[in-house]
């Protein structure tokens, strides 16, 4: 009790202004924001923030954009709970609270010079996108890039323009699938693991990044292992109830791990003993 105690509260957010809003699907919107203090958010790919709406509450949201020179950052938000529903009604120029960034990030440095296999299911594309953008912004630093994206149905596909651009680039490989097609769907049908037979990787040189709904991890990891990718080069980002972001409130705990500080990005070999992780 001898150290001076701070006069500021780690629970008080900074303000950020919404500069652009884009409707992604029926349930998701993309918000471009900038902090009122004029500084960049200072995040690394894969980190999250606590989005705060006064009178409603806070929710942990993955940052969807790559770190950049610009002061803006992006959050893609699905309407599911109190905060994420309330923010859907916000307009350009309105302000929200931001705490963070918090948590671990994707292994940007470690993957340099290697192949990366991205596997994103549904809204898992949102956190994965921060790393995908980073890699595409530094394309020459990385070798072969494969992006797999799976959605439950065509209507849940996010970032349509970007998906199309990725599909048309010849310096990356983009594959996608939907579980339940509609009559206009001409692409692959099936769960995301059905894409694995369609490509080869050199397992000695490849990292795998997996982000998706809880049910997806076990199956995708089995496929990645079958390709020969070792557990210590598989990275996952886990969703939990990160309420405080400060390693205190207990809600995000998986066994002895606080996801808000020890995660959300984990090296798979570090969590194979965590009974409740996947």
């Amino acid at each position, binding site marked *: *009790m001898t*150290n001076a*105690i*701070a*006069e*500021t*509260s*780690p*629970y*008080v*957010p900074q*303000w950020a202004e919404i500069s652009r809003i884009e409707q992604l699907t029926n349930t998701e919107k993309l918000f471009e924001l900038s902090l009122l203090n004029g500084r960049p958010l200072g995040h690394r790919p894969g980190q999250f923030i606590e989005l705060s709406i*006064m*009178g*409603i*509450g*806070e*929710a942990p949201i993955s940052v969807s954009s790559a770190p950049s020179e610009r002061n803006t950052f992006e959050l893609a938000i*699905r309407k*599911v*709970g*109190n*905060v*994420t529903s309330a923010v859907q009604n916000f307009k350009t120029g309105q*302000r929200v*609270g931001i705490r963070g960034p918090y948590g671990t990030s994707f292994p940007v440095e470690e993957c340099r010079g290697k192949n990366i296999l991205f596997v994103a299911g549904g809204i898992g594309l949102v956190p994965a996108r921060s790393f995908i953008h980073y890699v595409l912004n530094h394309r020459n630093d990385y070798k072969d890039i494969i992006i797999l994206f799976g959605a439950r149905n065509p209507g849940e596909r996010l970032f349509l323009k970007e998906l199309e651009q990725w599909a048309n680039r010849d310096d990356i490989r983009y594959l996608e699938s939907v579980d339940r097609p509609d009559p206009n769907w001409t692409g692959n049908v099936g769960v995301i693991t059905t894409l694995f037979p369609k490509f080869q990787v050199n397992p000695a040189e490849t990292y795998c990044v997996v982000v998706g709904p*809880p049910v997806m991890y076990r199956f995708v990891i089995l496929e990645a292992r079958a390709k020969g990718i070792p557990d210590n080069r598989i990275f996952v980002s886990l*969703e*939990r*109830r990160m*309420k*405080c972001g*400060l*390693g*205190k*409130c*207990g*809600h*995000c*705990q*998986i*066994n*002895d791990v606080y996801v808000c500080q020890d995660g959300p990005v984990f090296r798979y070999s570090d969590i194979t003993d965590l*009974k*409740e992780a996947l």
Partner: protein
Amino acid sequence: MNLRIMDKGELKKFVQNLLAHYRVEGVVKNNGAYLYDTIDSPEQLCMDFDCTRYPPKKYFLPPRETLFHFSTSPELEVSPVFESPPQVIFGIHPYDLKAIAILDKVFSKDPPDPHYLKRREASFLIGVDPKRISPHSFWADMGAASVNEGFDLMFTDLEDSYAVEIGSASGETLISTYARTQPATGDEKSKRVTLRTNLYSKSLINGLDFPSYEIPKLLEHSKESPIWRENANKCLSCGACNFVCPTCYCFDVQDEMDLDLKQGTRYRKWDGCLLKDFAKVGSGENFRESRTARYRHRFYRKGLYQLDTLQDFACVGCGRCASACLADIADPVRVFKKLKQEYREGGK
């Protein structure tokens, strides 16, 4: 060690003097239960309780605590709230002092929590050695029968007087300013040691039948034990074990808007890992939906998960969880003994 002796009659005057200068919180008897409450006369103060129903953690982590006030109109503004009323907490058993030291570790760990730390800094802790032991207590097993630090003053009832150990400079100031004491004699010192030794032995009677350092190993071995499901099947998911626990500190954060819809408060309130929605996220996914997973999580958190952070168990052996549990499944002694029995029968 600085040990002083206070005559029994002097205690009243000491408390009276404290009341003239501080808010004094102490143990009172209310409808048969021992509770921490504000006292306004020395007669209310109880020094020979066995165990209070709730721990003193509420003084540093209140059941509900405002983190900040905000206004949304005309401008978005936030002003943090730090409440740190100077207070004397009189009559804390060693196991609860140990629990406070555990909470100190949690809330000063980076990033530190100034809301907790400011309350803590403004509090004087006056300990008292137990004279009686609650039937569910097993604090000797958990290394919490007595403490050498973490208090400002520590009282021990020597029958015709009190021994008062001075544990800090502010404790020294309190006792020298507000009470008359004399140095302890050799006899008084050894009497205190004897009393503590007897107490230690008595607390072992209701305790474990193996050393507590085996608990982590037992838990490692027992993830699939049938005891989790058997007991969890009776669990009411009420969270009583969490709320009465001196080392449970999980909390939820919520907003409350004033009626004018322009201002409000963000506050935190106690939460408990046994409650059904504790690990539920916005999408509806609940990461510990089964009672078994929640029930097991609490025992692992007490005996295994927090070892790295705390360098100690997150259980001090007060036994309040066992007393509070309506389904009678929370007693750590019974659970750990059962795990030990399964371990032996497993031939390991």
